[in-house]
Every structure is written in structure tokens, then in C-alpha cells.
């Protein structure tokens, strides 16, 4: 097979846009929230579930999920765990710091096809970060969707993110919010146990419920078993996969699972697409 390469319109793929950190908040010992303003205050133009490559000169680049909803115009938001070299440097940055951004990249949640459906959010740990984009999208388009059910699990109460919003979710009549922690504290009055303990008691309209699942790799297997037991059809399940990514544009090869580049066809997958894909889950 020979390709006439001169027929392709070559693109500059690796140059970041220089943006600014316009607000920073610490959520937990390990996680901080950042608001990023692009030049001219332009919106990022992303879908819930998509990611950007955060680019810090001297530290490199890393894929980070967008945590704000596209319904929020202007600046977008990231929530980042301090876990590697780039995130270490990012955590040291303050309001007014410059930051490089490439993206948005990948495939997000197909929110158009979710319309009219009940939305069940299942988030473990920092899995809630990309899901919060979807949650806020549903909240901002409330009449387009059915019930909004959130099941959120963290290791301990002090690892729960978005403390102010959790109170709003808890108090909202339009949101069914369930939270659990693996390990409680004397002050913790809520559920204890892993995230799968939240699933059996849910009263779901199975055919009409979309489950959006994001969490650490270990979580998927168990959540999928719980959803199966609950008889949620596979076709109604969406999930986001984490992989190493260096380019975000389907070139560097790191995120490949079988024939699929997670940065292109993911990170959000429809479960039937990856159910039989070795190495995916």
C-alpha cells in the first residue's frame, strides 16, 4: 500500500497555547483545583469526559481530564492529584502563573444520546473529576435528562473532592446523592464500605438508565459485576480509561490497547466496545 503523502494537509500538533491559571483551590492533601483562562477568555470547546495535555516548560506534558462542564463559558477547570513530576510542579503554581494547554483531545461522553435518560454517575476517587463535568452538564440542562443519581466513593472523608458542591448535591431535590468512604473517621456519619456497596440498594429504571463509570483501574471489574447483578444492560454503560499518553493525537503509541488509541477513541468508551478487548479492563 502506497499513500500519496503530499495529499495530506499536515498539522502542527505539538505546540501548546499559553494560558493562565486564574484561580487555585486546595481540596485535599493531594488534590488541588485550578481554573485556567485561555487567551482572550475563549472557551475550551470540550465535551464532558475529554482531556487536555497540560504543558509546563521544564516539566513536560501530561493528560489531565477537564472537570468543568462545557456549559460554563470562559475559563475551564482542572482538578489534579499530585502524583508525578508534572503534577508536582503544577501544584506549586499560583494564580497568575502561565501554563501551556493542548487540546481538548479524545472522545467524551455522548451527551446527545443520553438525553431523556436517567443518569447514574459512579465515581471512585479522582474518577469523580471528569464525571463532575458530566454532572454539571446535566444540572445545567436539567430538563433534558431524567433522574441524576450520583454514587461517589473515596478512601476516607478527607479525600472527598469539591466539598462545597457535595453539600449542594446532598441538599438538592433534583439529585440523588450517595457517598461512601472505605475507611470512616469518628466524625463521619455516612456510609462506609467500597463503592460497590452503594449499587445494590439503588432503585433503577434499568432500560432507561445510563451508567457513567470512572475510577481507578481496579474498580471497574467490581463495579461492572455489581451493574451486571443489578441487570443494567451493557449497552447502557460508559466508562473512561486511564493510560499513559505523550501526544494526545494518536501518534506516540503509549495509550494503545489492541487496535484502539485511548487518546483518540477514548478515554470514554461505550462498554460494549471494550468488553471483549484484551488489556482494556
Amino acid at each position, binding site marked *: *500500500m*502506497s*499513500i500519496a*503523502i*503530499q495529499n*495530506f*494537509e*499536515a*498539522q*502542527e*500538533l*505539538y*505546540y*501548546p497555547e*499559553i494560558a493562565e491559571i486564574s484561580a487555585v483551590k486546595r481540596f485535599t492533601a493531594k488534590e488541588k483545583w485550578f481554573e485556567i483562562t485561555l487567551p482572550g477568555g475563549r472557551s475550551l470547546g470540550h465535551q464532558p469526559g475529554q482531556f487536555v495535555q497540560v504543558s509546563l*516548560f*521544564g*516539566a*513536560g*506534558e*501530561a493528560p489531565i481530564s477537564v472537570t468543568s462542564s462545557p456549559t460554563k463559558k470562559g475559563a475551564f477547570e482542572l482538578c489534579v*492529584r499530585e*502524583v*508525578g*513530576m*508534572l*503534577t508536582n510542579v503544577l501544584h506549586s503554581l499560583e494564580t497568575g502563573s*502561565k501554563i*501551556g494547554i493542548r487540546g481538548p483531545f479524545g472522545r467524551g461522553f455522548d451527551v446527545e444520546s443520553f438525553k431523556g435518560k436517567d443518569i447514574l454517575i459512579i465515581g471512585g476517587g479522582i474518577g469523580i473529576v471528569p464525571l463532575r463535568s458530566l454532572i454539571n452538564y446535566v444540572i445545567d440542562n436539567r430538563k433534558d435528562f431524567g433522574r441524576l443519581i450520583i454514587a461517589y466513593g473515596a478512601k476516607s472523608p478527607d479525600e472527598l473532592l469539591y466539598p462545597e458542591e457535595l453539600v449542594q448535591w446532598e441538599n438538592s431535590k433534583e439529585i440523588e446523592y450517595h457517598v461512601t468512604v472505605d475507611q470512616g473517621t469518628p466524625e463521619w456519619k455516612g456510609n462506609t464500605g467500597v463503592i460497590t456497596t452503594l449499587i445494590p440498594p439503588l432503585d433503577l429504571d434499568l432500560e432507561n438508565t445510563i451508567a457513567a463509570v470512572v475510577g*481507578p*483501574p481496579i474498580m471497574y471489574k467490581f463495579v461492572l459485576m455489581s451493574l451486571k447483578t443489578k441487570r443494567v444492560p451493557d449497552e447502557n454503560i460508559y466508562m473512561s480509561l*486511564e*493510560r*499513559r499518553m*505523550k*501526544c494526545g*493525537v*494518536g*501518534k*506516540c*503509541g*503509549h495509550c*494503545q*490497547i*489492541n*487496535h484502539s488509541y485511548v487518546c*483518540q477513541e477514548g478515554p470514554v468508551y461505550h462498554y460494549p466496545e471494550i468488553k471483549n478487548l*484484551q*488489556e482494556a479492563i
Partner: protein
Amino acid sequence: MEKYQLNTNKIESFITHLKNKGKVFAPHKSGKNSFKFNEVENPDSVVLDYNRTLNSIKKYFLPPREVLLSFSKKEYSFEKSTIEVEKKIFLGVHNYDVKGVLRLDYNFSQGNPEDNYLKRRADSIFIGVSYEPDEYHFSQSVGIPLHDTEGFDIYLEKNDSGYTISAITENGQSIVDGFDGFSEEQAAPSNHVQFKNRLKYNYNRLPEVFEHSWNASVWEEVSKRCVGCGTCNLVCPTCYCFDVEDNMDLSLLQGTRERNWDGCMLNSFAAVAGGENFRETLAERQRHRVYRKFKYITDITGEPWCIGCGRCTAYCTAGISIVEIVNDLCDEYEAKYLNRPVEQSGLNAARL
């Protein structure tokens, strides 16, 4: 297609002729037994009769290290890297290596066509040369027979008094046209040589084998010998994975962002911050490497991404052979799914 006779004593003047048309790159001797593509300075140092070069011409389109941008931390600004399109003539390319370039063309033009690669790749002329397969070449098994000239502009086939030159494309013809050193008499081609090494199944039968090879015992067996050094990735003409990293200069105020060749056999390749490694074992990584050459992209394009050059085997630090891996998969597939006995000998030579 016009054919010309280039006698041995005219090869140097032909190379000089090429040098007037653009930068010429050709194989040179490098060390005792190895060869290397370099830019030609002296036509008499070019070696057209060689078994394989350590690296393929991939290095000219996807350099081992490439500056993507230069940045200033202080200003928080960057300068784009500049890639100049220049005419390049690659002389003495074996046909499997030009097929390797055609495979890379697919990877870098599909989806998001990449500027860096396509600029370097533009305006390239490929002049092929016939070769005598050694114990590692098996291109025939992956659909690249000797004298397959797809991808070449000009092809040189060895004969008793030099080379028979065929101008294949218009570009090739225009290069040949200005040269007046051809001989009137056409010489007969040299004796036809054959491949000594081959896969048990031709590449078009391999998809059915790979369909059933995910849990084959071969992966675990091979991983006992593999040291995970990634040499097979680095020398492969169709391996294109890269890493990106920033390098600060000593002032710590500015630096460069570079991309470097990476390899899926390396432990860190699929590891993410936080400790998760999505292909933690050598067996998983070998399987990934071989599936990438024979299944993942092949399912989409119909062509194997292995071009049968034998480099990964010839240069493997642990003596692992990709032909033996694939042949063992074929054996296991036959034994498990076709109810045929596995041949007793595990030696590849016994299968020929």
C-alpha cells in the same frame, strides 16, 4: 520502463551524478560487520552490497531525537522548531526498508497528519538495490518478494558486470536521463537467490493464528530469555512510538522539548503516574510488540507491519527470533485448533 546497464567502474560517477541532484544518503561500512546509512561525501565509500544497516532510513523521517520546540521559562514563551524541506536521494535501499517507510507514511498521515514527519518525508527519492537474503531476512513471508519495487523511483538489480538500472517513476526517469555513463550492452542478471528464512505461514494466514494466540505459551517462554532492553523496538523500521521530555539548559531559564524514540518493550512504556503499569510483565510486552506487527494495524490495513528485515532478531541481545515466535504460535495454533501434531524440532531451520 527503461532499463540501463551500469557497469561497476561507472558506479562512482553515477553517485557523483546523483550528488548534483540533491543530498544523497547511502549505506557505508560501520565497524567490522555492520553498515549504516550516512550522507555520501565520497562516492567511493558507498557500499551497495550489504546485508542490512543497523538502523533503517526511518531515522531521516523520524529522527531518534528531535527538538519539537525551544522554550523560555522566564518569558513563558516558545519558539517552533523549523524543519526545512529538502531534496533527499536515498541510494541503495533494500525493498523491505522502503516498505517500512510506506508503513510509517500510513501512521503519520492518518488521523492527524503530522507536520514534522511529512515535511521530512517530502521530496524524497528512493533508489533501491537488490540484495542477497541472509539467515535473518524473511520478507517473502510478509508479502515482499525479492525485486518487489513498490516505493522505489529507481531500482538497481545486480548482474555480472554491475547493475541493471530500471527507472520506475517519472522522478526516477528524470534522474537517470542526465547520466551518460551507461553501457550499451545489457548484462544478464546474477543467479537468482532465495530466502533461507521464512515464516511457517504466509502473512495472509497469520490473522487466524493471532486470533487464537493471546494465551499462547510462547509469550511466557520468550519472556524468560528477554531482558526488556528495547533493542528490537529501536532497530525496527516500523516502530514509531516516541516519548516527549523537556530538557533544561544549565541556566535553568530555558530549554527544549524533545521527542525521542521509545519502545513498548521497556518497563515504563505503559506505566502511569501513581504506580499503575498496564503491561507490567515482559510476556505482556512481547505479546504487544508482536501483535502490533501482525494483528493490530494489520486488521485495519490488511498488511503486516513487520517487513521481514530480520533486524529485531539479528540484534537481539538475548537471541530471540521473531520468526521462531511466530512459527511457535503457528505450531501451537495447529496443535490446539487444527488437531495436527506439533513438529518435534523446535529449531527454525528444521522447518525450511
